[in-house]
């Protein structure tokens, strides 16, 4: 059974070997329901600033559900319910507070999806979308931001001569980097990645992983991945989830070398999952 008590955040931090960075965000006793189905149970976990935190676990464990709480994506569908809090620092806002507009949350926290989902627009307009949504009309500023974001997503060199082409004409890996550029263009504080490489080939995957390493210099990243090697490669912290519960959260090295729970070990060594 999965009834093991969740480790206190403080103790996790104390167990860590390196100095503890600042928290960017934190879920406190977060539970989530699809109708009457309890998909997340009482999850408390910090997200450290300018670090990559990976969520791993077998499919259906709630890792994507957890990720999508951070930008209130669940608000789009009726019958969904949150309990508990997700704090965003430094302004100490509870993102799940009903008074907080989900749009405000999404303007501060960007997301990249599992399958690339470019809009049926030009490459340029895809990247500029977030700025346009914010009412930005100055062409020069848009041009700068689009270039900056495309460079940030390591796509600029490949597309700079065809910014007005339809985004659908790009390859899968390019489309996903375009979606990352789209998310970067608005200077988010915090980036969510929902299995961003699951639809991509190994080369495109390597590109995106390199990108993640570069990005964490500037932003906080929370990433869901179905691929443990990927979690080990890209993340600083890892959380293992199972059946809607957080089993273990720690520095990635610790999780992979010396997991604190039998279950985590079984999953990581491939005996289950």
């Amino acid at each position, binding site marked *: 059974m999965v009834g093991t008590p969740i480790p206190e955040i403080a103790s996790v931090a104390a167990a860590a070997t390196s100095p503890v960075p600042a928290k960017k965000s934190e879920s406190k006793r977060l539970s989530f329901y699809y109708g009457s189905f309890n998909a997340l149970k009482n999850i408390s976990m910090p997200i450290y600033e300018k670090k990559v935190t990976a969520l791993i676990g077998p499919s259906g464990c709630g890792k994507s559900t957890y990720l999508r709480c951070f930008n209130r994506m669940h608000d789009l569908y009726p019958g969904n319910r949150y309990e508990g809090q997700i704090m965003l620092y430094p*302004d100490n806002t509870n993102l799940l507070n009903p008074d907080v507009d989900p749009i405000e949350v999404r303007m501060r926290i960007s997301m990249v999806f599992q399958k690339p989902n470019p809009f049926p627009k030009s490459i340029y307009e895809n990247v500029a979308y977030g700025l346009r949504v*914010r009412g930005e009309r100055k062409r020069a500023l848009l041009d700068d931001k689009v270039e900056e974001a495309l460079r940030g997503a390591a796509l600029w060199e490949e597309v700079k001569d065809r910014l007005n082409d339809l985004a659908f004409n790009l390859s899968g890996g390019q489309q996903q980097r375009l979606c990352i550029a789209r998310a970067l263009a608005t200077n988010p504080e915090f980036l969510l990645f929902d299995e961003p490489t699951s639809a991509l080939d190994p080369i495109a995957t390597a590109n995106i992983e390199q990108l993640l390493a570069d990005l964490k210099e500037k932003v906080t990243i929370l990433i869901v991945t179905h691929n443990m090697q990927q979690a080990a490669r890209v993340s600083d912290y890892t959380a293992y989830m199972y059946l809607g519960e957080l089993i273990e959260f720690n520095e990635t090295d610790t999780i992979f070398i010396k997991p604190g729970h039998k279950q985590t070990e079984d999953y990581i060594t491939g005996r289950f999952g």
Partner: protein
Amino acid sequence: MSDATAVKVREIRALIARHKRWDVIFGIIGVLSLMIGVLTFVALFLDMVIDGAPRLTWDFFTNFPSRKPNQAGILSAWVGTTMVMIVTICAAVPLGVGAGVYLEEYAPRNWMTDLIEINVTNLAGVPSIVYGLLALGLFIYEFGLGQSVLTAGLTLALLILPVIIVATREAIRSIPAAIREGSYALGATKWQTAAHHIIPYSLPGILTGVIIGLARAIGETAPIITVGALTFIAFLPPAPVQAEPPFVSFEWLMSGFTVMPIQMFNWTSRPEAAFQLNAAAAGVVLLVMTLSMNALAIYIRYRLRKNIKW
């Protein structure tokens, strides 16, 4: 850092408030647009009921049309509509269901099938009056069927054929392959599978299409005018059942006729206001007929969606 974030959050909030106004404005515009539809419908219905209600007596249904507006009735019109619809059903249902079954279960993937499919889509978009011209040239003058119940029924059958074919195909397509495979696995032939499983299971969907098609046929006016429905008819076609042997007669098929929408058109285009009241009364009858048929079809489809989960 914290101050900067606070300023940024305040800016974002102001921006969202501005943008969200458009959500509200569009929501209102959307409801208003729907209301235009609703109000038109209410106005149309009430206008017709208020004008027509005093004329809706028993006599109205049992009288022939007359030169005196308050004695005129719709007897020949509703009898004519019934007879034309019988012909339409007899022609359109077997042809439409047969075509639908063929296209879904039998048709090989070749140019002939593509041609038939494109044809059905295109026919659905042909204006009804063009069907009238087809009937005039083909049924009346080439085949010599005359300006008869039969001609009108066949014309309307061709008109609603695409509706029935499309409904049949959609109903068949919603049956999972497992049912077909199950039947074939027991050694059934193609036709046995179709007759024992595919057609019975898709009946509610087919029925929906047939009802919608018939509701449309009942209301069609233009093609019936071109095939020469009479606008003033003071007799009924010969009854299909006779007192003497051979007891059944098909003379009614070749008889002249009028139908409800023609009767209404005739009264609407009269200058006298009294006849326009008759038109309103006929309109109420026609509306009730077509609306209740459409409502029935919508209800069957709703039940279908709710009950059947393959």
